[in-house]
């Protein structure tokens, strides 16, 4: 589907801003999870700045689309998207992980406007999303539920309970996006607990599956539109991504940057790279 150049540029710009904020936040906090936040940035941009029906002024609007970050550790990315979208002031981002902050180390739906489900322990977001999708069905509302999972989520058993359930219940208002960066804390997924064949697994659970480049805004928008057309099955978008995307030293050693914040020098280097990307 052709998209206006202006829209694509804008979504790329927002993804870049999310990435810059991720670096600033985790550096300021001195801890956190930057690499996985960078791999999901383009998906967050497409959802929050174009695709989802949301109203940051009215975060409890009953008909809003819902987004669940199942890979809760990657919340710096989500917080940046929420602040940029206007759910709370940008200044709050600097308080990440500090005492009395609305931005906890892992998402807390009672503290952060726009967070739809608390998260952290992996493998639970898809089940929560299935519950919300059922809620839409029971209450006769037509919102959609988007769940972003990561490799760790895909290794957890509850994700497969949820996948079986959503396929059987034909939750077509449930869209799962798999941030498939193939990297986890201890190293590459292919060396620890390989997920392949990913698409076949979900097809066997009665999902519609599509694979995309998770950093190509046009492909992300296309896949979301395709997912929204589903009427009988939940949709899985396997977004092939690069952990640490946009910051060279993180992409070179993604596992090392799973849960480590950049120091001053490296944060500056990362921001320089991201600023250059923004100019290009």
């Amino acid at each position, binding site marked *: 589907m052709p998209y206006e150049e202006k829209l694509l540029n804008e979504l790329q710009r927002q993804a870049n801003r999310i990435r810059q904020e991720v670096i600033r936040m985790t550096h300021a906090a001195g801890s956190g999870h930057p690499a996985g936040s960078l791999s999901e940035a383009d998906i967050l941009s497409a959802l929050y700045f174009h695709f989802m029906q949301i109203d940051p002024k009215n975060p409890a609007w009953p008909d809003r689309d819902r987004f669940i970050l199942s890979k809760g550790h990657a919340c710096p990315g989500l917080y940046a998207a929420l602040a940029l979208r206007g759910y709370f002031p940008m200044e709050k981002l600097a308080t990440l992980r500090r005492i009395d902050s609305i931005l906890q180390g892992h998402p807390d739906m009672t503290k952060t406007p726009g967070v739809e489900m608390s998260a952290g322990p992996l493998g639970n977001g898809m089940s929560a999303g299935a*519950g919300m999708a059922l809620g839409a069905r*029971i209450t006769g509302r037509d919102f959609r539920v988007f769940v972003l999972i990561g490799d760790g989520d895909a290794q957890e058993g509850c994700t497969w309970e949820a996948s079986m359930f959503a396929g059987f219940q034909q939750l077509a208002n449930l869209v799962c996006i798999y941030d498939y960066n193939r990297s986890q804390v201890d190293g590459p997924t292919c060396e620890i607990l390989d997920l392949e064949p990913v698409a076949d697994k979900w097809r066997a659970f009665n999902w519609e599956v599509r694979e995309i480049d998770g950093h190509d805004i046009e492909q992300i928008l296309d896949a979301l539109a395709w997912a929204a057309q589903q009427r009988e099955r939940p949709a899985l978008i396997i977004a092939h991504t690069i952990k640490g995307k946009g910051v060279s030293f993180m992409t070179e050693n993604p596992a090392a940057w799973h849960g480590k914040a950049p120091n001053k020098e490296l944060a500056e280097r990362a921001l320089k790279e991201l600023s250059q990307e923004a100019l290009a």
Partner: protein
Amino acid sequence: MTVYPGKALREAFGETLVELGEQIPEIVVLDADISASLKTNTFAKRYPERHINCGVAEQNMMMNAAGLATTGLIPLACTYATFSSMRTCEQIRSFICYANLNVKIISTHGGIEVGWDGPTHQATEDVAMMRAIPNMTVVAPADAVATSALLRRVVAYAGPTYFRMGRNPVPVIYKPNQEFTIGKAIKLREGADVTLVAMGAMVSVGLDAVEKLAAENIQAGLLDMHTVKPLDGEALLAAARNTHAIVTLEDHNIIGGLGGAVAEFLAEHKPVPVVRVGVPDTFAESGAPHELFEKYGMSANHVVDAAHRVLK
């Protein structure tokens, strides 16, 4: 001994659930393949659009409930107490209670009174685990009347609740018009020498023990502590002041459950001798419930012995 007609709590639960389903359109019932055991089938037939059988996938069920609660519905997630406390502990703790979501966790088969199925299906740690989670309310009705009345209270209350029932018929000890309030213990017998503080199926065991003690000229009081959390501290203080000795009765490990809660409270506020009657920190075994109560020290006679010990 006074003989009361018996009824299983889950029977009363299933009947009340149908009435509540009619009155409260937000109620959604989730099962994990044991709807026949939870007695939710009538609700399921009457309101199929509000009944979801999640299959044998309890963690998913609990998270479905969390998601449903965010849409303004009142989910009741139903399964055996062993599964709803242990298999889904993280979902309950880190998602339902952390976010204070309005999910009702309905458990049956709490305690060794499950009997024949053996220790894998006898939940003896569930109250301890649920009680230790912030935001959680823990309710354990003593009979069919209490089950019905407390279920109404629990559904009307906004917040996560663990509702614990046993498997087998237990004596109906309350009159139909008995009032119940979450967090307010019911004084069933006035005591002078010792107070028995009981929960769930052990309340009727306590009634028997009160009669036996009366025959020995020991006037025992009896409190039905149907809400283990928040604990009714006022009732406990009054009992400690009036009788100076407490025996707790629970079909649960004596560690961390009602006995633990009562001992914690009294140690801080009004130290008096406490003896805990319950499962003595061991795994039980298969067998008839009354045999198990006899073998593991939970019969009325054991309560009488406990009263003697606490009065020494």
